[in-house]
């Protein structure tokens, strides 16, 4: 019993130290766009989408994910590979690198709704059933179910949490 308490104590101190280092430091988005999510995984809900050059404030970090506050005041997690510690200037043509559906509308709207437009046209031209893609995309488990599955199966979340 004593050993368990000790281990937890060490973990908490370690976590607090990591948070303290990262806290408040600015980061700049170096990808064309990056999704900010409610949790550390691609299956969590998107709370905001940040674009190249935008500055975010880091609130904490864990297992390759940074918890940030976006310029619009939203808080969530971004994968560290999308962020740079140095200021990033968006190039004049950067927005052109987004898929056209993204460039023609706001980034958030693009990530929410306009996806699949080009693949749908392709499927129609070739006589393929795009319903297959829709079925697959809509049949994936939600984040809560994945977390439960990891826990029940004795598996490990990034950062070692169970």
């Amino acid at each position: 019993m004593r050993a368990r308490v000790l281990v937890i104590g060490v973990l908490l101190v370690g976590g607090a130290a990591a948070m303290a280092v990262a806290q408040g430091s600015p980061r700049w988005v170096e990808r064309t766009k990056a999704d900010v999510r409610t949790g550390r995984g691609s299956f969590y809900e998107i709370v905001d989408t940040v674009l190249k050059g935008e500055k975010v404030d880091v609130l904490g970090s864990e297992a390759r994910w940074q918890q940030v506050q976006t310029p619009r005041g939203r808080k969530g997690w971004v994968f560290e590979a999308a962020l740079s510690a140095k200021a990033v200037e968006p190039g004049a043509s950067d927005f052109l690198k987004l898929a056209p559906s993204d460039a023609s509308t706001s980034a958030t709207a693009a990530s929410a709704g306009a996806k699949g437009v080009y693949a749908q046209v392709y499927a129609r031209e070739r006589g393929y059933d795009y319903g297959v893609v829709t079925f697959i995309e809509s049949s994936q488990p939600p984040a809560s179910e994945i977390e439960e599955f990891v826990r029940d199966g004795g598996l490990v979340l990034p950062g070692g949490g169970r």
Partner: protein
Amino acid sequence: MRAGARIAALALAAGLATGCETVAGIAENVQIGLPGGAGRAFEAARLTAVAAPKIAGALADIEEGQEIELGRAVTAAVGKRYPVRRDAALMRYVALVGQAVALHSERPDIQYYFAVLDTEEVNAFATPGGFVFITRGALRLIRDEAVLAGVLGHEIAHIALYHGVKAIKAEKQKDLAMFAVREGVAHTRAAAFRGAISSTADFFTETVILKGYSREQEAEADRAGARYAARAGYDPAGLRDFLTGLIDRGGSESGLQTFFSTHPGARERRDEQDTLLQKEAGGGRRNPERFEAAMRPRTGEARPAREVSTPPPASDPYAPRGAPIPPPPNPQPQAALLVAADVPRAIESAGRYVSRRIHFDAGSDRLRPESLGELRLIAEGLSANPTLRLRIEGHTDSTGDAE
């Protein structure tokens, strides 16, 4: 450079260069805490020190959004060649295992999608941008969650390590790349993008999905896949066990030809996994009960398959006005993953049928309830073939006393 990889991977498959020059010499790395040291040997065997952001930079001429859109197009093409199994419960289980593994890849930030193809062929593959497929034939050969995790981990690695994107670049399919630097007004860009998606999706489906990745990429995906599975808490031996199962069955068995043609060098791959596993501490979860429960709903207690209808596309600006909504595709007849006829078939082709699904309580002759479905299936298969002469063997583990 990377002599080890060359020895292990033998030769490159014809026609597909790996584009590995884009990652050579990248030493900076994404450091990940390894729970309990799991996957350490696989970690050490990471011959291409992969830094996902650096690769992403090197491949900047195919943007992530384009890659994902391409993945959707290839998925539609795959759906034409193989029926997608419309069994939401089974798909969900495969996706849960896949998501648990993908969290530990170099690219946990793109959305992964998992689906089961309703074919006896033994195969698994991945499109760029996040779609992973496994066939019913492959699931039938799998015995527990760790094996499934290893196989899915291998496919996730193809996506996380940009193997599809590299294959496209290696084939000088520059349409998407050219599009990325093209400037112009939105509607001509949209037309160019549509054209690029179409030609690249055709290329990818014909070349990579149907013929496979290069041997070097397969070897790299093995190491990475086993590593992700180990980090996720699974027994890292899962992928090795899958390869061993395939080798034991041999390439003559129907359904396996496709696997061996798209995944050459199974023996070399198994041997490399063996070597790496010898340096592993072992351990990790296998979760056979959970796997069993998800795979065999139709052979034991019948569990109703949830019916899922395909909703029409949310928005389709190219649809002609007043066009009727296409009817949902015909539901495929859903065969059980393992059918009774498999038992005599295995006895005839391989000389034996090995079941790891019949269990007793430790130190007891009492059968565990999860064994009943398997026994029923074997009984059914054997009673339909009364001429077979058999010897039945059983083995125990080291748990319990020797009496």
